[in-house]
């Protein structure tokens, strides 16, 4: 029994929405463990988000240092492990973002902790449900180590609401950093005004049948009309039509929006694993026998070249009539 240390990612002065899913798991785990939620904010600009974080938990710990300007697992993992020990944590948790997936198993190694990755549910204090086999089954694992490390699948946990009240904010030293020779070189990021794939209420995804990156422009028009995020199949990302981080699926992003458009995507199990939790699925494909139609709520057997422009104009009409 003990506290829950929730590693939360932030952007500027606010927690990221992915962190709010982590906090909703953290609250449930704290209840099960008879402890409290402690939010850890780590990084060069961490303090800026502490005011926002304090709305979600009774205790916020900030580890801020210029040496943490670029995230590296080598520097973050020992800090997280130390915070866990110093604060009586029995659960250490993060969202299964690329950062969470990279750092949390390393933390587990430093703490001799058992780890449950990418969980979908808490079932008792040390039992976790997690999807396996491309989401074709759910496995319940029971972990008996004194400290347990967890990453949380964002799409399976509702974002936490504010706790009502303001938690205390304290700081902890960064301590000695050993990077084991690793260094950050550079980042190539795409700036986009669209919502993150993980947060979006609507996702518009294209596959190999889009043929080239230029053709994705018409899907982007549809996305902008609906305030949607863009997604893609592996075939489209591998072919370089669109950025790799648009990949939805077992080994890419897992999404569960209100509405998912699969355009010119066949529906391989690895793709379905990333989107079949969506509330409403629309498939547009020229071949009526594709497996995507087995998960789609609404299927249209048509070439995208004809279907998508028509879809855009019909949606505009509906919006205009409201």
């Amino acid at each position: 029994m003990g506290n829950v240390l929730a590693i939360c990612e932030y952007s500027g002065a606010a927690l990221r929405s992915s962190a709010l899913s982590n906090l909703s798991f953290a609250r449930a785990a704290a209840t099960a463990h008879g402890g409290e939620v402690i939010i850890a904010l780590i990084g060069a600009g961490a303090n800026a988000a502490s005011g926002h974080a304090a709305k979600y938990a009774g205790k916020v710990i900030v580890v801020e240092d210029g040496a943490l300007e670029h995230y590296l697992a080598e520097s973050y993992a020992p800090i997280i492990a130390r915070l866990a020990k110093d604060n009586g944590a029995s659960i250490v948790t993060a969202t299964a973002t690329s950062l969470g997936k990279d750092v949390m198993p390393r933390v587990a190694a430093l703490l001799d902790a058992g780890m449950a990755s990418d969980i979908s549910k808490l079932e008792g204090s040390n039992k976790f449900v997690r999807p396996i086999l491309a989401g074709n089954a759910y496995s319940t694992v029971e972990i008996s180590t004194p400290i347990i490390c967890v990453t949380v699948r964002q799409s399976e946990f509702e974002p936490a609401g504010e706790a009502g009240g303001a938690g205390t904010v304290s700081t902890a030293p960064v301590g000695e950093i050993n990077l084991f020779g690793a260094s950050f070189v550079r980042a190539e990021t795409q700036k986009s005004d669209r919502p993150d794939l993980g947060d979006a209420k609507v996702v518009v995804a294209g596959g190999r049948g889009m043929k080239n990156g230029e053709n994705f422009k018409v899907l982007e028009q549809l996305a902008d009309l609906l305030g949607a995020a863009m997604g893609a199949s592996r075939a489209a990302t591998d072919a370089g039509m669109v950025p790799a981080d648009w990949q939805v699926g077992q080994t890419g992003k897992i999404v569960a929006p209100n509405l998912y458009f699969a355009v010119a995507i066949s529906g391989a199990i690895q793709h379905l694993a990333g989107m079949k939790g969506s509330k409403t699925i629309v498939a547009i494909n020229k071949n009526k026998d594709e497996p995507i139609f087995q998960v789609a709520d609404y299927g249209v057997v048509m070439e995208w070249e004809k279907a998508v422009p028509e879809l855009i104009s019909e949606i505009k009409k509906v919006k205009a009539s409201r």
Partner: protein
Amino acid sequence: MKILVPVKRVPDPTQKTKIKDNAIDLTGASWIVNTFDEYAVETALRLLENGESNTRTGGEVVTVTLGPDDAAKELRTTLAMGADRAIHVVTDDKDIDSLAVVKVLQAIIEAEKPDLVLMGKQAVDGDANQVGQMLAGKLGWPQATFAATIEKVADGFVVGREVDGGVEYKKVPSPAIVTVDLRIVAGHSVKNGVTPATFAYQGEGARLPSLKGIMAAKKKPLDSKKIADFGVGAPAIREVGVTLPPARAAGQIVADIPTLVAKLANDAKAI
């Protein structure tokens, strides 16, 4: 350069998932090398060859698996692809958890002293995505996960990592743990300073074993070890149940776009 590649066998993902006695029913299952590990073997071979002239330039690739007797078959597959030797730690899958896998791999790495450990980012059965990072933590080694590109430089490797929002380049010295993502098998993803930069590998994934490779693999060393020699305790992580996800309700094919939009607006209330 000596490269060690841990590989896991996984049930062929195209098989239907069945449950028996509260566990995944694997009777009669066919098995494959975890695709990401196959890609890791491919990456190791690309680092050690001139891709254009298709010649090995030296070095050694050692593959390692923990698994039952049958898992020797998947190790032979890696030897047929071009790995030089293999180590098989014989154990029942049910007796090991990720902590045990890490402990055994750590002992083997400490004995073998490779310059690089290359492995899949995740096993596509358990989908855990954790063994590589844990190993790095235990060994006190740097890690570069989710590699889409890798370049050999004088004092280590520069790895292009697929992260949320783009690609992050990270430099790690040797030895290091590198876990690979899907794009690592793209034509230009591996740069070793030998293969001309203009050369692009063709094909969609890892190389298929050639007939010659398959014959050669039969004579390559495959060292079998017992898990008992590694002092692994009882698993701290136990699977206590498995369920199938609920099926989605059957959908409908709609005749045209206006019908679709009407249904999205009125029935699904999704737009």
